């Protein structure tokens, strides 16, 4: 039995998204949360490339994915800059300690 390339990619997309959401729900460490978000974006990116491939517009799908890479890198950079600042000011990266505003 052979598995076609699109099927493999769909499995990868679902896998990345599944792992990302699972990680997002279970981890309480800020850097790990950012990594989880990255995994999710990578899944979405792969989905865009696959969508381009399935509809015969590979160029469009890939250019979308490249744009996403740029935007998503900036999110990661801002997230990590915030993490550095959180560590400096609050002294921990554990999200459970970031609850002073809850009321």
């Amino acid at each position, binding site marked *: 039995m052979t598995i076609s390339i699109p099927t493999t990619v769909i499995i990868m997309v679902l896998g990345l998204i599944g792992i990302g959401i699972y990680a997002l729900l279970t981890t309480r460490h800020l850097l790990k949360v950012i990594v989880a978000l990255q995994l999710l974006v990578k899944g*979405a990116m792969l989905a865009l490339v696959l969508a381009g491939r399935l509809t015969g517009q590979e160029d469009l799908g890939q250019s*979308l994915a490249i744009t996403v890479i740029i935007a998503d890198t900036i999110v990661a950079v801002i*997230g990590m800059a915030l993490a550095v*600042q959180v560590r400096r000011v609050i002294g921990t990266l554990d999200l459970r300690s970031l609850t002073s505003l809850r009321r």
Partner: protein
Amino acid sequence: MNPNNAFLLAVGLPVFASPVIYLIGRIATRKNPKVDLARWLALLTLLADGYFLLIAGMEFIQTRHELLIAVGAVSLRLDGIALLLAAVVLALGTLVTLFSGPAVARDSGRETYFALLTAMIGTIIGLGAADDLFNLWVWFEAMALCSYVLVAFYRNEAAALEAGVKYLVQSALGTVLVLLAIGLVFANTGSVDLDEIRIAAQPSGLMLAAGALFIIGFGVKAALVPLHTWLPDAHSQAPSGISAMLSGVVIEAGLVAMLRALGALHLVTVSWGALLLGFAAVNMLVGNLMALRQTQVKRLLAYSSLSHMGYILLGVGAGAVIGSEYSAAGGFFHILTHAMMKGLAFLAAGALLYSLHQAVGNHDPLVVDDLNGASRKYPLTAFAFSVAVLGLGGLPPLAGFMSKWQIFVGGFQTGSAWIMALVVFAALNSVLSLGYYAPLVNRLYRCQPVRIVEQGKPIPVLMSLPMLILSLGVVVLGIWPSLADWLTGPAAQSLLMLFGG
């Protein structure tokens, strides 16, 4: 000037001016720390931008032809909704820039503040006018990026960092979901162009899933309950000018993005509008109930934004479900009046926060007790704050009454029992909201001044001026609501075209 070029400039100018503002402001501040060039450059950029928008907007209003612009992969369409959002964000943004000059004058990184504020205004104008799904996502993400940094502007305050982290994580998850939805739509229809999707999108399980992902993804930004948990933190911890922008236009920009995406999927199911109406009811109730128990002024105002998002959803949703143009125009009118009133409320609260706390060097939040007797020492600010909150509560003859009235009348005209019940519910909620607005005014005017007010510093003229302009606007629009018809009418027609086909 060619209106197409004028609109292109209106979108591009703030975005491209932003790094220039940062660099020049930074160099000038380095040479002489007292010089603050960035804010004047930002103000100049926004005024020039207003001129370009006026040229393009006048052309659209007079001819009623949508302006279609394509440069490379960027495609823009100036229709009624885009014009309304652009006008609101530019007007409020200019006043906020004026206000923020003294407010952030003693903070380091003020060049960043003005550069990002300008960029955020440009990206919101672009977001409103985006003509394909992917452009929409890029503008949306760019707006979000600017706002993440601005929310955590007080980067040495634990509370601001906490709010920034919550905002970033929730918002970033939202944008990923939108991206997945775009992937689904792209795979199904073979296009990301909104017009082509409108024709090609047929009912199917995957398209329903895409629509749901759009609602959740954009709903985080638009603060639909229960996706709102970042909002009270972010809006209360951001610098006051940014709170005004976030509450006044950024959450509405999220709603506009959602309307564009759902409008393109209008053939998939007819119940998108009904879903919006459902969120309207939940938002009004939760926003009001949570606001009732707040003790911090900015947090209270943030929760009240949730309930006002409910009124906007009610107007817009009735427009989308029944095709009622009057109702949709009411929803857009409420976007306009809410931006003015909530902007004014946050600016006035920010002015008090500045003079009572920040000017003496502490970062404590402004609590409702600090308002006691403030009218004796700060008569103008107290008046502006009262106009804002009474307008938000919906007292005539203020602008908030008129926009709510139009939404209610529009809802009754639809003749649908569900929408009429919802209108009654909204009216009751409006009464409930006075339960937290009225005591604020009472404290300002009828209590003895507390010690912190007596020791407060004066409020600079540049902070008072935007408040004066906005108060005047709220009163004038309350007396002559038809002054806004040229803006809200075309927006409502554009909405009906989105959902009616």
